[in-house]
């Protein structure tokens, strides 16, 4: 349960400082990310390239065409996943909830894998027409399709309860898993490798033109989430209590569900599946500053952005000149940190 009095930083003022610290942290990580990588670019050179409109050379191309789009993508995807996780955990009143729980990620996976496997046969027109955009679009459509199915299933008679949502999610997850299994079976070895890589997640290879549509969508969802802070706080008191306090609970749940679907769909479409961020970041932030969503949501966004930037930085630089899958890093970073936080919280409780 998300009890209201558990937090390491209880004072309101301290929370504001913490948000400021996170913003600064995000900026610092961004600069580190832009200066480090396979091609070494010093800080002063970076400033020249960014603000002095350098002519087109290799360093310029590396910053503007490779690192900057990748950094922006990491920040926005991290923020989106963080916010989705925080909102999900609030709606389910369970700190272990994440977007994967209600079939959102598997929907995107179904779309992407269908495009990879059937893109050259059944959907050949689709794959031809969209080229490199085919898989992202497929993932996004798959996500929306599966989410709307879950929504229809769980909102019978306009109830939209958490239990029905969870059950519909589990059922649809199972069906989607079976379909993905069948697709994997009929795939050629090249398609099999493509879909394996897709499910490992990566931020590589995106330019501004490919990421802008998704970025707009994710930012819009983040903005939407931040406006739900107050009703989510009331919702934590319990559904009945929130209703008596004037919160339209069903509508709140629908909103959270829709934003999460859109945001996760847009993120997964570009990056493949990056697990753990939406689950770990809000959890850690909640341990630090408590469950007040006016602070929790922005802090989760910033935390997610920082985590994903750091993870991507490590993925890009640890085994140069090749690259690690980012999902590996998010788990390796998040896991131990999460454990330490957990132990600390229990100690505080004992005192």
């Amino acid at each position, binding site marked *: 349960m998300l009890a209201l009095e558990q937090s390491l930083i209880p004072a309101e003022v301290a929370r504001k400082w913490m948000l400021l610290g996170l913003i600064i942290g995000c900026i610092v990580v961004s600069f580190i990310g832009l200066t480090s*990588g*396979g*091609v*070494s670019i010093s800080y002063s050179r970076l400033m020249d390239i960014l603000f002095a409109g350098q002519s087109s050379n*290799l360093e310029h*191309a*590396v910053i503007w*065409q*490779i*690192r900057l789009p990748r950094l922006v993508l990491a920040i926005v995807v991290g923020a989106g996943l963080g916010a989705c996780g925080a909102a999900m955990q609030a709606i389910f009143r369970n700190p272990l909830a994440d977007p994967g729980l209600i079939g959102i990620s598997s929907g995107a996976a179904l779309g992407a894998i269908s495009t990879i496997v059937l*893109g*050259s046969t059944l959907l*050949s027109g689709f*794959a*031809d027409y969209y080229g*490199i955009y085919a898989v992202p679009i497929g993932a996004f459509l798959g996500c929306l399709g599966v989410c709307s199915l879950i929504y229809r299933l769980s909102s019978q008679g306009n109830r939209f309860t958490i239990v029905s949502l969870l059950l519909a999610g589990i059922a649809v997850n199972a069906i989607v898993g079976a379909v993905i299994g069948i697709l994997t*079976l009929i*795939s*050629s*070895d*090249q398609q099999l*490798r*493509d879909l394996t*890589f897709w499910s490992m997640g*990566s931020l*590589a*290879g*995106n*330019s501004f033109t*490919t990421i802008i549509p998704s970025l707009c969508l994710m930012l819009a969802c983040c903005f939407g989430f931040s406006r739900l802070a107050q009703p989510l706080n009331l919702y934590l008191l319990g559904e009945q209590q929130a209703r008596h306090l004037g919160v339209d609970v069903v509508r709140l749940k629908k909103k959270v569900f829709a934003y999460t679907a859109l945001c996760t769909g847009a993120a997964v479409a570009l990056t493949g599946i990056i697990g753990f961020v939406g689950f770990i970041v809000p959890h850690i932030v909640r341990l630090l500053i408590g469950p007040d969503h006016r602070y929790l949501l922005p802090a989760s966004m910033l935390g997610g952005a920082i985590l994903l930037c750091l993870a991507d930085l490590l993925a*890009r630089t640890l*085994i*140069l*000149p*090749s*690259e690690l899958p980012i999902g590996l890093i998010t788990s390796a970073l998040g896991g131990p940190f999460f454990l330490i936080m957990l132990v600390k919280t229990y100690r505080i409780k004992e005192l």
Partner: protein
Amino acid sequence: MKAQITTLLTSSLLLLTSLLQPTYADQGAKNIVVSGGSITEIIYALGEENRIVGVDSTSVFPVAASHKPQIGYVRKINVEGILSLNPDLLLGEADTGPDKVLTQLQDTGLPTYIFSDNDNLAGVEEKITTIAELLAVKEKGQALVEYIQADRKALTHVLKQVNNKPKVLFVLSLRSGQPIVAGAGNSADEVINAAGGVNVAAQHFDGWKPLATEAAIAMNPDVIISMGRHGEQKATDLSQVPHFKFSNAVKNNRVILIDGTYLLGMGPRTPQAVVELATLLHPDATLPNGYRFRAAQSASENESL
């Protein structure tokens, strides 16, 4: 069709690269990043390995190649890693990717040459000639092509003496107890046919698929080929599984292990590997006088050709 897309893509890439290609007056490319094992093998065979500044993870032969800086797996190459090696050419197989990473590399102005067709046995000479031209060592390329002709002639010689084709099954792995076998339309199928065998799985499916026990028993292959250290006699696992236990191949002790890159790499050693496979499939056939296996059959031996 996927093939059409790749052709379209690669032809447009070729067009792009021809525009980007600096004219190598007499030197050819100096710092090459290679994505694809057979290309690496050819460059080593040409004796130009000092020009290679980075390789992908499929470049495992010769052993020395795997000590070069790694740019990742052929379908998952890394932009910045490649740029950090300061190459003046990226030479890649048709399946080099992902496409968006390749596009990024070309946008930074790196000349790339991506082969338009996937590897095949007939294309080895053409590939050697192309690479030799890019490296401006035409004579060396010519010499290597001629060197391979001995293997081609030997294969023809062996196949002339053959009138029956054994039923062959190529097993990729035995993971999770289900053998993954080669169907039609892949490198294993190609070498089996080239060596005068019949791939029994080819009529059932394309690509690589797990094989059910009873289907495997019904296929009853005369010979089973699997990948392993060359000449290793540890085919016991394959002989134990119920799929193959009762097959002619196990009864007559004809489970063959051949090094994967040697047989399926479609590099300069593969023509010889096919000759060797042909002699294993047809033990009664003789090799032409004076012909001997010259290329290393596994990556452990410290020679390239």
